[in-house]
């Protein structure tokens, strides 16, 4: 595993025109990579942007021995940028050391997505990253509890395995 696993694996719009970058985002959002809810995972964490109703739920499974991502996927709904960003990010972090995700800078993701296109929506562009970082943090907390011999209590935000009703119906959560 290289130290710069994630940054090197990010699909990027570098070298593209603004229109090409937009087309790239539209394609990623329309046919997202690593999209779906697995039957099992270590952590489920949902994140949302109250401003525009974007929702991204990250499902993380960790390779304990390697302390790296064994599998990560997402479900969600929202604007093109938030869903495209989730697709690009979740594809790039497969196999990545957790430490790299913890140290990842939002700027890397925004550059890959095309800063000129996403700069007015930084929260949409970084929603998946902040949610993934939250999932890693939660994983760490679970391991600490386990090592301390404490009962594993799923935090409130991960307790519900089912998507929110409105999301399940494909409806906007703010309707």
């Amino acid at each position, binding site marked *: 595993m290289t130290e710069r696993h994630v940054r090197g694996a990010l699909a990027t719009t570098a070298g593209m025109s603004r229109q090409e970058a937009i087309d790239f985002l539209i394609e990623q959002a329309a046919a997202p990579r690593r999209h779906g809810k697995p039957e099992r995972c270590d952590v489920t964490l949902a994140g949302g942007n109250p401003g525009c109703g974007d929702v991204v739920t990250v499902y993380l499974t960790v390779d304990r021995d390697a302390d790296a991502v064994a599998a990560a996927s997402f479900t969600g709904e929202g604007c093109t940028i938030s869903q495209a960003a989730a697709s690009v990010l979740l594809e790039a972090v497969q196999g990545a050391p957790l430490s790299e995700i913890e140290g990842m800078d939002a700027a890397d993701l925004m550059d890959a997505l095309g800063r000129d296109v996403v700069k007015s929506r930084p929260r949409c562009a970084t929603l998946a990253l902040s949610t993934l970082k939250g999932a890693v943090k939660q994983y760490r907390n679970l391991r600490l509890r386990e090592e301390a011999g404490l009962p594993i209590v799923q935090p409130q935000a991960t*307790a519900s395995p089912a998507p929110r009703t409105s999301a399940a119906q494909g409806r906007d*959560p703010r309707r």
Partner: protein
Amino acid sequence: MVKYKNPELLVDTEWVASHLADPAVRIVESDEDVVLYDAGHIQGAVKVDWHADLNDPRIRDYVDAWGFAELMSRLGIGNDTTVVFYGDKSNWWACYAYWVFRLFGHENLRVMNGGRKKWIDEKRPLTREVPHLEPVRYSVRTRHPEIRAFRDDVMSHLGGPDPRQAEVRLPAGRALVDVRSPGEYSGELLHMADYPQEGALRGGHIPGAVSIPWSKAVAEDGTFRPAAEIKALYDGQGITPDKDVIVYCRIGERSSLTWFVLQELMGYAKVRNYDGSWTEWGNVVGLPIDNPALEKARQAESHAKARPTTGAM
């Protein structure tokens, strides 16, 4: 038969299609999804981004009059231009832009019924060509602050209650409409698993507000419901044209749509949009809040404590 009071404020897709080359008309797309315009828009349409164009980047407010005039100039909109808004999400942001344009005193405003979705569903053409527009002179001549409510206005509207009093009744002739989803209104959403970043420290609603989600005024195809249905919807909850009405949501965009329905389409005399909405009210220290979900949880806890324990036999 119940009719819209101002039906001319709503134009249909066919009207827009027949005015694409009309120099007196400027079509404006305003979306939540910032890349949709670039993906394809109505020929000749310009884009207004609620976030980048209408909001002041430093303080939580809109651009000033100079900034608005500069925006109008850049978009080729003169003081007499008829502006037709359309957008995604059943015209949420189109109505929001409409409301902001009205705040700055622009008079000739319309909304394309059904928005972007209806245009696309009818297989009408989209283009990626951005119109080249010569700057025009624009001056903000008058303002309409009477369509906007600030936090203190809402507090006065409530009659200035003690924040801790158990029940708040609005003074006669006043009404408050919460247009968010029922879960947001009841205060449940802050406790739901899927909303860890809710953006407000407290859940619930402003005391005295009735819950009428914005979406009830819109049909599945994104068009506004007929006047008779809208009248029944709002009358049924006491929101009548004679009332002094304030509407709010989370950041003021969904309530802009409800404002458009009540004030513009139905011709209510006095409707204000509280754009600070829940992201302000739910975060300010010391404001009164009604939270049915919290009350329910307290009652459940109280019943559980009161229940006598039984030993194992």
